[in-house]
């Protein structure tokens, strides 16, 4: 793991701010009726996505659930094309056929966001199997929500990865709720990383990784980097990132399951504010630079929206294409 230099830290800061601005704009576009379907925002979880993806090499793989915009942007997908997907346009990363929940970019080894809770976990195992089968030394980072750890796919996929010693980092983004159900109301064990114990013992099978502060991008980066190298050498590892989603589960969530005070508390300790404060303390006179990044992120989002609005709608040909390989 390389110690991140100033340039890298500023890049992370940029990514986190870009995600935040992007998501805020998505919410507006949703209200205006320009984005349809379900929309799950990543606001509050930026440090986890950015730190974890920074821990990967270019040849490694990423796969996640439907809360995927932040992951896509952190993996370097063009915000213009991600926004075009939100608006259901042909220039969208999935040609307007996937929508907000189903972003992917094969070139960047981002295997997609998946709308079925847990449905991508076995895919992650399979992608890791391909890497191992062909001795490619590539690791799969599979992100999932806390809620996904209660679904059958979780058990079957983690167990198989243990038995076959697959190079997967299973990363739980514990944002404390699956829709309106808190972890304690949904899971027999609330320290979710302990679930690793069911799939490994004495250095064999699944490794129980750390429970990390998912609001601290540096910590996420350091811990996930270690996990990635562990997975590359030895096999699967489960990591839990403690985070919080500052918005509703999806648009229009009345949020009856939590209090305003609880949310406020996390707003105060949000990942971007914390990282900004860290940078200001670490580097003299960095503030103008940070302000510049803030402004740039906003411009990029403006450009993305402009691009997306100008992109054509998919046609009948698009409707019937790609059902099969011709």
């Amino acid at each position: 793991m390389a110690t991140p230099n100033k340039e890298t830290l500023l890049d992370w800061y940029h990514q986190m701010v870009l995600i935040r601005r992007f998501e805020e704009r998505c919410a507006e576009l949703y209200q205006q009726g320009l984005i349809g379907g379900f929309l799950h925002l990543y606001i509050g979880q930026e440090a986890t996505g950015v730190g974890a993806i920074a821990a990967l090499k270019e040849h490694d793989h990423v796969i996640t659930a439907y809360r995927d915009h932040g992951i896509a942007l952190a993996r370097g997908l063009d915000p213009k094309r991600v926004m075009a997907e939100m608006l259901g346009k042909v220039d969208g990363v999935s040609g307007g056929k996937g929508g907000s929940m189903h972003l992917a970019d094969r070139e960047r080894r981002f295997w997609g966001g998946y709308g079925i809770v847990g449905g991508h976990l076995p895919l992650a195992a399979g992608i890791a199997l391909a890497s191992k089968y062909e001795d490619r030394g590539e690791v799969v980072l599979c992100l999932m929500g806390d809620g996904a750890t209660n679904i059958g796919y979780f058990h079957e996929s983690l167990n198989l990865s243990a038995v076959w010693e697959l190079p997967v980092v299973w990363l739980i983004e514990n944002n404390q709720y699956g829709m309106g159900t808190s972890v304690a109301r949904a899971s027999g064990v609330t320290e979710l990383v302990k679930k690793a114990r069911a799939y490994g013992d004495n250095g064999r099978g699944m490794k129980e990784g750390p429970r990390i502060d998912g609001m601290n991008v540096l910590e996420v980066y350091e811990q996930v980097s270690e996990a990635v190298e562990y997975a590359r050498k030895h096999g699967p590892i489960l990591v839990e990132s403690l985070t919080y989603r500052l918005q509703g589960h999806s648009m229009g969530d009345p949020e009856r399951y939590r209090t305003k005070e609880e949310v406020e508390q996390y707003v105060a300790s949000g990942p971007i504010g914390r990282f900004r404060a860290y940078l200001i303390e670490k580097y003299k006179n960095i503030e103008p630079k940070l302000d510049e990044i803030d402004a740039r992120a906003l411009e990029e989002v403006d450009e993305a929206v402009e691009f997306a609005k100008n992109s054509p709608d998919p046609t009948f040909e698009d409707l019937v294409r790609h059902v099969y390989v011709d």
Partner: protein
Amino acid sequence: MADRPITIREALSAALREEMQRDERVFIMGEEVGVWGGTYAVTRGFLDEFGEKRVRDTPIAEMVIAGAAVGAAMAGLRPVAEIMTINFAFLALDAIVNHAAKVRYMFNGQFTVPLVIRTTTGGGKQLGATHSHAPEVIFAHFPGLYVAVPGTAYDAKGMLKASIRDDNPVLFVEHSTMLQRRSPVPDDPDFLLPIGKSDVKRRGDDVTIVTFGKGLEWSTAAAETLAQDGIEAEIIDLRWLRPLDLEPVFESFKKTNRCVVVEESLPMFNVGAEVAARLQDELFDYMDAPVKRVAAMDVPLPYAAEIERMALPSPEKIVKAVKEVVGG
């Protein structure tokens, strides 16, 4: 090379072995495929021949067998995953329907899923309601997936090899009571049958019988009985439920003007319903009688032999249905 009579089991084995020898990326995964040699002995000897890397025993975990096979296929391998019987494929329905069949489309063609899921189907072995399904038609409902339903050793080999070489996901459904059926099969390692082509298995001018899988056997027996009464049935074996090739059915129907559809599926929403709808749509003017369907009865399959037999199609039921449509 000369054709040799071999069983469906041997045909499947040969197809798998040849394709694994040909392409290093082809591998097998599933419950009891390795040490045990395959629940239906199709992969017997494979572990010794190909090793643990390519013949992979899995836990009893259908969701991840199907799902991991999808992921491995997306990432460049060519898995042949085995679901022990189609009854257990219900547990893998999400991975098959939502992922195998959809990831290509949903991500705008970025991913390819060169996957074969092999499984066995069918009742008639007194296994009771949970273990006697023949629900392959359910899987044929979904665009993005192919569904193969071979009824002879010749077809089994050529279709399986073609499925493994194709870049689309295929659910390959073998009938568990037909594995010992024998027919001549080419030894040629490049013997392939086209995907989505049905086949005329018997020529006749009086009635068109459309069928697949086990139905082929029942229909063939029925046709022999009918021939004694001077009724010549033309039997069309669909071989694939998706892509569904009805051209030979239409051709035949223009000549016979009568059709009976025979299948082990349950009677509602089945292949017969599809064929009847398509015939009235395309060839209404050629219809001399309503299309008849012979399917399983609308009950879960029971254990007791006599009533289980009663619930399934049979040559007698087919003969009766044919006589109704030919008006004799």
